[in-house]
């Protein structure tokens, strides 16, 4: 007699817990120590890339992040093309910029609506936000979908796109395919404007930090894929000079690498840095929207990053519409790339900040060495500095309130280490 399969009813939740811990010590009424510990083990992507064909880098690096795979692909292909002595223009360049707009939209909207806005309203998570601000969350979900659809149309699928290749794209989207997105992107642009206006009404904790901002700066446009690396303290270097000016280092209390400017210290990448170093590269209309939202030409309050993120979302919708209006299908959809035995460097602007990559490729086309520096590691030391300030200000708070403020402070810069609600195991010592 045949034995039937058995169905076991389960109904249990999958959880992500224990991503990080924060240790705060007060002694005699003074803050003595703050340590942010990340437990996530190394993922060995750089080692995985070694001995793989140079053309595999965009597909492998896309797997590093489900929220910002395009950023990893863009830095990878630009670094490979730099190694090959190529610089692409025309429609391929435009398509890459358009693809990046899609990622900024979906990532920024996820960050603002689902992860950060509940903090400002004293709500535990996006589910509660959906219950108290249903229309707002539905607006956010639709905006995010518009960004994902843009990525899908150009990249082949919404998450971990597969259509990007060194030298261009496997297949270029037809003009009609992109034109079909225009009505939803126009709606998205209007929704992004409402988003700026809403985020500007949120109660903002007062905090001004003396960050050294670091971002790309391009001669004529708000930076995405190209530019020199500049800082608010006067740094102005070509991307290939990154290793001479920056370094990663380990700290005993965390598995996450930290980074610093050599002989100077921590710095900040991401929306606050991009905005403050490139305000003059935003279209005049968007500059005015930012001013109307209470922002100046620079912003040093990390909590206002949610407003800056909204301004960048507006820009991404605006830029996407501009690019689609003039898009002509590139033919061919890619340029042939011949590997050379040199090291190529590239940095692009991931939603959360500067993403630097370098590759040494042999004459055989195999990757001999890879170096990937995500914004998460570049901002670690600065996030800890922010936590010092927050803990200092919040000394009188109950531990639960201090925890909420600390999580909010981390989410100012990086949801990737705080996307699980109540991710922190907070230890406060008061002696």
């Amino acid at each position: 007699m045949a034995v039937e399969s058995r169905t076991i009813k389960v109904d249990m939740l999958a959880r992500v817990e224990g991503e990080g811990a924060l240790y705060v010590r007060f002694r005699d009424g003074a803050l003595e120590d703050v340590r942010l510990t990340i437990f996530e083990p190394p993922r060995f992507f750089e080692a995985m890339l070694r001995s793989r064909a140079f053309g595999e880098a965009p597909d492998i690096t896309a797997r590093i992040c489900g929220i910002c795979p395009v950023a990893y692909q863009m830095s990878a292909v630009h670094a490979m093309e730099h190694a090959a002595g190529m610089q692409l223009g025309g429609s391929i360049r435009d398509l890459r910029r358009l693809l990046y707009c899609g990622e900024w939209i979906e990532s920024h909207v996820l960050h603002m609506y689902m992860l950060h806005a509940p903090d400002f309203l004293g709500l535990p998570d996006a589910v509660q936000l959906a219950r108290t601000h249903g229309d707002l969350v539905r607006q956010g979900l639709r905006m995010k979908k518009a960004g994902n659809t843009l990525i899908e149309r150009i990249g082949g699928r919404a998450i971990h796109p597969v259509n990007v290749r060194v030298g261009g794209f496997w297949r270029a989207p037809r003009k009609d395919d992109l034109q079909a997105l225009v009505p939803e992107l126009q709606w998205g642009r209007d929704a992004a404007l409402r988003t700026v206006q809403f985020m500007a009404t949120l109660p903002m904790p007062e905090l001004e930090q003396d960050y050294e901002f670091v971002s790309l700066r391009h001669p004529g446009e708000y930076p995405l894929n190209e530019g020199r690396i500049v800082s608010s303290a006067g740094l102005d270097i070509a991307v290939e000079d990154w290793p001479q000016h920056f370094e990663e280092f380990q700290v005993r209390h965390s598995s996450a690498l930290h980074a610093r400017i050599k002989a100077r210290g921590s710095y900040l990448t991401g929306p606050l840095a991009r905005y403050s170093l490139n305000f003059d590269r935003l279209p005049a209309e968007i500059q005015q929207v930012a001013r109307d939202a209470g922002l100046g030409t620079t912003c040093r309050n990390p909590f206002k990053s949610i407003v800056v993120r909204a301004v960048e979302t507006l820009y991404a919708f605006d830029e996407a519409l501009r690019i689609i209006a003039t898009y002509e299908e590139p033919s061919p959809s890619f340029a042939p790339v011949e590997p050379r035995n040199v090291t190529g460097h590239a940095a692009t602007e991931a939603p959360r900040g500067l993403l630097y990559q370098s590759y040494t490729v042999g004459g055989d086309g195999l990757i001999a060495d890879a170096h990937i520096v995500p914004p998460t590691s570049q901002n670690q030391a600065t996030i800890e500095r922010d936590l010092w300030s927050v803990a200092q200000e919040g000394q009188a708070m109950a531990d639960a309130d201090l925890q909420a403020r600390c999580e909010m402070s981390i989410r100012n810069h990086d949801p990737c280490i705080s996307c699980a609600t109540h991710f922190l195991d907070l230890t406060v010592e008061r002696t």
Partner: protein
Amino acid sequence: MHEARLMRDLMTRITGVAAGNGGGRVAGVHVWLGALSHFTPHHFAEHFVDESAGSIAEGAVLTCDMSDDPTHADALTVRLISIELAPD
């Protein structure tokens, strides 16, 4: 990264439930994806294929119910509804 960790936890639960019910190969997995979980069925299936490779759930038929309700109490996460154990 978040999705990979979530999937790893889910696989731990799948193999645990299978072991607790006599073990054997998992022929099917039924999950519910929250509207705010950042998963699409396609994306989830990819992670499932990666994570189940070499396990008792490799090759299992995956059924994903995608919720569109952001107010659902579990909207941020993934629920394992049931698993189907293959006949011995």
